[in-house]
């Protein structure tokens, strides 16, 4: 086995694992850049994973379009699910962390509750027959090693990278982005120049829900092919970590998500090469988390959150 193949496989798997995290971290980015803490990414991913699986399951007779419809349905469900978080933290000025925690509980409960109702008491959806197939970019995918690594992936992965770029453009090149960031840094300043702070935050939180849900749906529609109580199991929190790790920047968040992805891919690789003889499996499982802490402590250090993050905005007009 040559190392080029290993590397190629590793990159390929890294992208598979990172995609959901990229979506969710970007979701968190919108919300937090607007000043609303989003610890509910986990819950939003759960709702996305659930909706994606159920809708696809229901319509999978329609063929390969089914996962796409499931995916879009997930995004819509995510945006709607994010609404209570917006109402609580923006309109009712609730503690955003508390509201987020509530949503995480709600998602975990509701999704499995509904699953059991829909699937006759079963803790998971039936296995989907129609899920996303990997795409190969014509021409590029044939490049030795590199093609498999970079140009053969699920459509959601390509989409994720496109959304990273779009987010960067939206945030730093358009007036929507300027306003969104202003609302997250200094809402009063934004208010005094006529920007509707609350509306911006509502939009941001709902985009956040949609993207995080797309992340969740990515998991059910590419890697697990079903939804169960632990389909997400903590990935929303990892995405949140990626967002902070990536300093609330789209490219940074993507980089951090890829980092977690690579650590996950390495985990399987290490076992394949029999390294577990030398290192206990438990330590390999720990690897991504230890690395994250080391990297954060060693290189990243203090990260600067949006200045108004977590602070409800009072217009004074009541």
């Amino acid at each position, binding site marked *: *086995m040559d190392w080029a193949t290993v590397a190629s496989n590793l990159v390929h798997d890294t992208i598979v694992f990172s995609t959901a995290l990229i979506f969710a971290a970007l979701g968190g980015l919108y919300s937090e850049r607007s000043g609303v803490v989003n610890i509910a990414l986990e819950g939003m991913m759960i709702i996305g994973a659930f909706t994606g699986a159920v809708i696809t399951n229901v319509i999978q007779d329609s063929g390969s379009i089914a996962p796409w419809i499931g995916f879009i349905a997930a995004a819509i469900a995510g945006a709607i699910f994010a609404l209570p978080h917006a109402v609580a933290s923006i309109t009712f000025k609730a503690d955003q962390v508390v509201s987020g925690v509530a949503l995480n509980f709600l998602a975990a409960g509701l999704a499995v509750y509904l699953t059991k109702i829909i699937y006759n008491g*079963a803790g998971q959806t039936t296995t989907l027959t129609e899920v996303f197939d990997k795409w190969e970019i014509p021409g590029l995918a044939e490049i030795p090693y590199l093609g498999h690594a970079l140009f053969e992936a699920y459509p959601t992965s390509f989409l994720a990278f496109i959304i990273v770029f779009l987010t960067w453009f939206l945030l730093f090149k358009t007036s929507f982005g300027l306003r969104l960031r202003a609302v997250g840094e200094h809402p009063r300043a934004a208010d005094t120049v006529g920007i509707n702070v609350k509306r911006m935050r509502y939009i941001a939180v709902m985009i956040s829900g949609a993207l995080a849900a797309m992340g969740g749906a990515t998991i059910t529609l590419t*890697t697990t092919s079903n939804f169960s109580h*632990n389909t997400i*199991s903590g990935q929303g929190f990892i995405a949140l970590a990626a967002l902070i790790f990536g300093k609330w920047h789209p490219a940074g968040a993507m980089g951090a998500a890829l980092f977690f992805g690579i650590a996950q*891919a390495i985990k*399987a690789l290490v076992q*394949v090469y029999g390294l577990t003889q030398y290192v206990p499996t438990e330590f390999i499982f720990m690897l991504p988390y230890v690395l994250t802490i080391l990297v954060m402590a060693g290189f990243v250090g203090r990260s600067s959150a949006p200045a108004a993050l977590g602070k409800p905005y009072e217009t004074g007009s009541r």
Partner: protein
Amino acid sequence: GSKTEAPQGQTGNAGGTEGAAPAAAARVGMVTDVGGVNDNSFNQSAWEGLQKLRTDLNLPEGNVNFLQSTSDADYVPNLTQFVKDGWDLTWGIGFLMGDHLKKVADENPNSKLAIIDAEVDAPNVESVLFKEHEGSFLAGVVAAKMSKTKKVGFVGGVEIPVIKRFELGFEAGVKAADPSVEVIKIYTGFFDKPDEGKSAASQIYGQGADIIFHAAGGTGDGVFNEGKNRKSKGEDVWVIGVDKDQSLTFGDDITLTSMVKRVDEAVHRVSKDVIDGKFEGGKIVWLGLAEDGVGLADTSSKNVPEDVLKLVDEYKEKIVKGEIKVPAE
């Protein structure tokens, strides 16, 4: 003071059965781990066994029931719920429930309990275990004979004795049939994470293996996904299923065969024995090839050629006769 036999307001599922069950009708309950009764694995299998029991004996709907645990701490109260409610038999499903079931059995010596996959030493518990290694040996023979790349893989859930039996049996089977075939093994550490299974499978196929045998419960779903994905890309890969005939779930275009573990049969039989008054408390039952407790799925002939199946039968005979002793630990 306790009121153990307190009549429950109403027993039965949603909608309930209004006219209460006949007094003589037997009641059998089971407690699952976090996976629940639809885990495509042995919880589901066990539940199917109870369902079959119900239809066979024409019991009312509420007379078989299950409780799903949400954490380790739930096992004892869940088992106790059935026991204190006076159910005729209470099943604990899975190795991990062993200690908990023992505690409940000791505290309630007049109750009857049974467990799958664990040995519980108590006079009122019947333990049912399977010789997974024997069945897995046959799966190994199929894999070795049918691998074109001379590499096969094994994906395990958590590294517990039960799963170890799968692994060792499989490897022994492979080596017996063709010592030149290499076995790549990965333990994912989970029984319920298909994405981990998929990752493991991807790595193993990436190493050039073309057949993977999994013993990972729901995690194994990911192995099937990865296999299907590759198959649709034209790669010639297979998956060997576990516990149930998984070709029924994932299709026989990817499922080479399955190592079936007849949890449903066992649950059905032991439950029936209890109802018939033939409960053998304290007994530890091992079900292997000889007892038809394990074996390859009947649908194997779809994908496995005649000659290989013949070889499988030969090995089976030798194992049953004791000529081959398959390692279990």
